[in-house]
Every structure is written in C-alpha cells, then in structure tokens.
C-alpha cells in the first residue's frame, strides 16, 4: 500500500454501488476511480446531477465506504472502523441545506457541537468557537437563533461549526445551491479565505461554473469517471467536451466560444467578465 503523504485525500481504484431495491439491479456509481487531492489545494468538483459528486464526497469522511478499492484520508484508510473518528476529525463536511445541519438553537452552541463531541476541554472549546466565528465573520451573531438568520449566514455558521473541529480539509457539497447571490458571495469569500489564510484544503462540489473558476483545480466527473482535470483555464477551454457532458463553461468563456463560432478568434481562457471584456477590447482594436 503506497500512500503519498502530500496527498491529503486519495481514492485508489474506488468502486461503489448502491444496492438495488426489491431485487432491482445495483446502481453502479464508480467502477474504477482514481483521484488525489493535494494538501492545501482548492479543488472544485463539477458534474451533472447523478454523476456521483455527492457520493464521492461522502467517501471522504467515511459516511459511505467503498465497495472496492480504497480511500485514504491523511494516510488513514477510511474503511478502518478504529480510524473513523480520526478521519472525520480531519475532514469536515458542509451540506447543501443549512437548516438540516444546524443542531442547536443558539449560534455559538451549534459551533461548539463538534468540539464537544471530540471531548475538547471547555475553555479550549470557547476559544475555538470564538476563533471560528470570527473567521466566518459571524462573531457578532454568536447569541442569535439560527432560524432567524439568512441562508448565507446559516451556511457560514455551518462552516464555522466544521472549522471549530480544526480539520485539515473541508468538503462542501453544493453549499451555495439554496442561497441568493449575496449569500453565495459571502460563502465563497469565506471558503477562499480559509483556504488561503489557514491553508485548509477545500473540496467544493458545485453547479456554479463561476464558483468553480475560482478554484486552483477543477475536476469534472461524468458517469463515475474523471472526464477532465486541470486548472480552471485548462478545463473550461474544453467547451465542446463540457457541452457533451451536459455542463457549460462560465458565461464569459461561453460568450467567446459563441463568437468564435461566428468567425472570431478569441482565446477561451477568460474566466470572468472583466478578463472577457479586456480580450474583446484587444481583439477589436487589433
């Protein structure tokens, strides 16, 4: 068994199938998936509904166990029951619906839930909770009731609840799917800051191409296999491939691609409107 210590998470020949109900055939999600995530990186995982994104995420902290192959987290085998808590302590999960992951009636109590489960001493929990709430910019709301907060705020509370456990990696499963644009921006800013300032590895599962464009690396999943893998510029310039899978590139790339169909000759590496405007400007002047 070789494990690369620089990889915080690695899936090796991962296979997974959901058992079919009432004699129906099993649903095969992965047959042979290999994927590793570098410590400290910011990886976005894209894919259509049902391509196995969430299933993959659940393998990263032993919520689901592989039917074949192995998943290693910080060098620990996720299928080893003795290491379950160590794995979950290192990989925090944030889910789509903030309402269904907040346990307590008061913001700070909810953030304290994780460290309390780990058996951390009381003064240390207090410190971690304060630090975590400040990091997500929700410190002044610490005594509020979560149900009175906006979706974006609730989602940041959920993130604080995860970072209070001081994990090395956070997996976010479509954290912005239920949020308005402001909430999405706040959550994304928080996630990026945690990645850059604290060096926490981030795995972001998303449907929003503009969010994926902010990552260091984009992995596109299709039918349980990796269809594309690389920097956002490398992946999003493969517009045809993305369309075949049923995905789209960020709007700015799509625009340039459409213009190219009309006879323009623009590069497909502009990930945001600003870069796109610049490229168009340059092209028109030339």
């Amino acid at each position, binding site marked *: 068994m070789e494990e690369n210590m620089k990889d915080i998470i690695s899936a090796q020949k991962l296979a997974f199938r959901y058992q079919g109900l009432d004699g129906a055939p099993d649903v095969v999600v992965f047959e042979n998936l290999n994927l590793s995530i570098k410590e400290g990186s910011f990886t976005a995982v894209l894919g259509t509904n049902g391509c196995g994104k969430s299933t993959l995420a659940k393998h990263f902290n032993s919520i689901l166990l592989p039917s074949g192959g192995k998943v290693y987290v910080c060098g620990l085998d996720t299928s080893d029951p003795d290491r379950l808590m160590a794995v*979950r302590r290192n990989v*925090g999960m944030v889910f789509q619906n903030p309402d269904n992951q907040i*346990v*307590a009636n008061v913001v700070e109590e909810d953030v304290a*839930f994780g460290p*309390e489960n780990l058996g951390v*001493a009381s003064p240390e929990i207090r410190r971690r909770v304060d630090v975590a709430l400040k990091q997500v910019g929700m410190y002044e709301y610490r005594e509020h009731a979560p149900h009175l907060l906006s979706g974006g705020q609730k989602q940041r509370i959920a993130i604080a609840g995860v970072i209070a456990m001081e994990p090395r990696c956070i997996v976010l499963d479509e954290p912005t799917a239920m949020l308005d644009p402001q909430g999405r921006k706040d959550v994304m800013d928080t996630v990026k800051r945690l990645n850059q300032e604290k060096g926490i590895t981030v795995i972001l599962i998303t449907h929003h191409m503009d969010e994926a464009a902010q990552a260091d690396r984009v992995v596109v999943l299709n039918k349980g296999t990796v269809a594309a893998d690389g920097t956002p510029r490398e992946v999003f310039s493969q517009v045809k491939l993305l369309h075949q899978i049923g995905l789209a590139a960020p709007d700015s790339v799509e625009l340039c691609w459409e213009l190219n169909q009309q006879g323009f000759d623009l590069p497909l590496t502009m990930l945001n409107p600003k870069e796109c405007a610049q490229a168009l400007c340059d092209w028109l002047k030339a």
Partner: protein
Amino acid sequence: MLKDITLGQFFPGKSPIHRMDPRTKLILTVVYIVTLFLATNWFSYGLMMAFLVLCIKISTIPPKSIVRGMKPLVFILVFTAILNLFYSDGGVELVRIGSLAITTEGLKRAFFMIWRILMLISGTFLLTYTTSPISLTDGLESLMNPLKKLHVPVHELAMMMSIALRFIPTLIEETDKIMNAQKARGADFETGSIIDRAKALVPVLVPLFISAFRRADELATAMECRCYQGGEGRTKMKLLRFSRVDIRAFEVCTCLVAGVVTLAAFGL
C-alpha cells in the same frame, strides 16, 4: 396564525435571572408552582403576585410578550372559571338560572383559580423566556443524571428534546409554505365543517411528515460528520456552575415559601 406559537421561545438577555444556573431555575420553578398551590387567600396570593411581578421586572422580559403567550389559553381559562362559578357551594346566592346558582363563594373561587393559572403560566413562561432551550436541556440532563444509574438514557433524551425544540420554528415555517402551496392550488382550509377542515389538512401533513423524515436523515448524517457518537466522552462548552445569583435566588425563594406558608396557616 402559525406565527403566534411562542412555545420554547427564548429572549436573550443579561439580567440576573438570565444569568442564573438553569438547574436553579428549574428547581425554583417547581418550588414556585408548589407554593402557588399552598396560597389560599388575598394576602398569600398578593405575596406571590408581588414576587412574580418583581421577577418579571428583573428579567427585563417585556410583559406584553407574556400576555401574548396567554392568548391560546383563553378557552381553558374561561372553561375553568365557568366550572368554578357554578359548582361551588356556600356564600350568598347572587343569580339563579334554573338549578344553577352563582354564589359569592363561586365568584371568589373562579377569580382565584384564574389568578392562580395565570401566575402559574407566567412563572413557567419566565423560565422558558430567560433560559435558552440548550441550557434548559443541559439543566434537565444534569438534574436527571442520577437516573443514569438506572439505565435511563438521560443524554439521549436531552439531545432529542433540544433537537425537537430547534426544529419547531423550521417545521412551522415549512407548514406555512406547504399550506400556501396547497392554497395556490385551490385547497380550502378556512371554510366548511370541522371534519372538512380536518380533511383539508391531510395534504399538508403528508408532505410535512415526508420532509421531516428527510430532514432527520440529513441531520443525522451531519451530526455523524461532526463526530457525534452519543454522550460518552462528550464535553460541554458551558459548564453549569452555581454562582452568587443562584444562592441569592434560593434565599429569596425560601423566604417566599416561608411567607406563603405562614400566611396560609392563618388563612389569609
């Protein structure tokens, strides 16, 4: 209508009552309720009332919200009052309707009964308004701790209670949403007989139950992700500790009980 439910509502604050240990508040609320039933007449009731008003004043809870919380109980109050009004003997007969008579004694009893219920409810409101549900369940858990020896799942019960409280507003919101969705498709909740209206609620309850189960499933996964594995080896951010406020509170309540018992002994 759904927004009126104030069950388990908590008003954050910094008053001495807020700062009291939840265990103190739980014990003293029980003591208060028992004392309320020892009170028999004007003076002892007056003393209890003075104590209650003082507590509300100290707690800085707006009295309006306590009054608002009473609204759903109007029916029970009226019912109790009517029962007491007609079924008390003695005193001077005031009005007679057929075989039912209203006497001065009945009037007095009805009045005291309503007063007692109102004070009882205000007192318990004061407990839930000044104590966060989490510290309330923490307090209960700690008070019931000796029962662990009898294999009562104390931690699990406390956890279930706090989660239930946490999800009340969420489920109310959801019920509202489903009702609106059904109304938009022509459902009628307001007219017809009671049976018709009850039937109209079925299409609300079914999706509500399904979504509650889905929520429970997701919550369980989220809790597992955060390393929850029951009460074993769990620590608390806020440790329960008796402070000077609690000692003061116990002193005041001892005086109250002594006062009420003495007054009651003299039939006042």
